[in-house]
């Protein structure tokens, strides 16, 4: 019988990111702000994905996905904007950020 793998703190990181996304959506005051925050978060996660591209972990995908889930859930309460546009803008931010990082637009030295 295979040994049960002990639970680690990383296994629960999705809860933290759902809450983070949810709270961020709740306090954002309008549709425009909602899209801007979504885009900027995408930019941030794009950089994280690029930095970890050599040995990307499952937790990274969890982080990226569950933040968005929390964000959309929060938006369903506030009712600002269209969730489809938000998701599109979020992934657009990730793609743009990943591309700019790959082109070393943000500088060669990593700080």
């Amino acid at each position, binding site marked *: 019988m295979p040994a049960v793998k002990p639970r680690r703190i990383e296994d629960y990181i999705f809860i933290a990111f759902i809450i983070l996304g949810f709270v*961020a959506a709740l*306090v*954002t*005051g309008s549709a425009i*702000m909602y899209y*801007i*925050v979504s885009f*900027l*978060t995408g*930019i*941030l996660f794009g*950089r994280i994905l690029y930095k970890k591209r050599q040995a990307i972990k499952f937790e990274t995908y969890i982080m990226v996905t569950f933040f968005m889930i929390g964000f959309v859930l929060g938006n369903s309460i506030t009712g600002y904007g269209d969730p489809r546009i938000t998701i599109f803008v979020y992934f657009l931010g990730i793609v743009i950020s990943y591309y700019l990082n790959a082109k070393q637009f*943000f*500088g060669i*030295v990593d*700080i």
Partner: protein
Amino acid sequence: MGLATYLDKVRRYYPFTFLEIRNIMITIILIGFMYGFNDGRPKFETIPYFYNMLVSMGVAAITVLVFVSGQRFAGISAGYRVEFQMWWPGMVVALIITFIARGWIWIPIAGGMLLHHMSGHRLGFFRYGLNMLDNGIIASCGPLACVVYATIVKQIAVWTNLASLPIINKMYWFALVFAVVNMLPIPPLAGSKLMYNSRAPYVFIFAFILAYAVMAYFNLFSWILALILAFVLWVLYYIRYEQ
């Protein structure tokens, strides 16, 4: 080092590279945007809003240049060339916080710096190579330069009876908040470089800047009192944690 030698080094090593100019300009625009995002008016008015935004960017530009110059001048005197490094993730997080807080919270972070060892100019220095102490001291010269600049602005305003002008207050407070935030021990900000070298000097310098800013909030403008308070805090820290 004589003055002529120092000035010659400044002339040769002070100018910024293209990448630095680009990064400094982006930093100024983003910090100015965060600072001017909420102009405090209950209703949006186009001309006053953009005027306030422009003034905020101007204030941010002067402060960032003072900060970077402080580090650069200190670096040159110790035989290093200082390179400004923008902290992209930090800047994006600061922007997100500004948007979420609708401009009521703004975090003016400058970024990091890199030291380039200039072999010829380091000849004769004790600890010839790159070291953490020089890194920390040079980094903390940025926030200290901001405090000096804020004091000069305030003092000149008091002498010329211009202290009540809103722009003077903007310049003064922005420089102080900028100095305090950049002394936080978060890599790659200036405070982290000093703290990684030694905690005791970090506590003294950070306590000085924080004490000066807090006292200024209560209309008490005194470097001497801030230094005394910083010394007391440093002693308390030493007795409690280092002894």
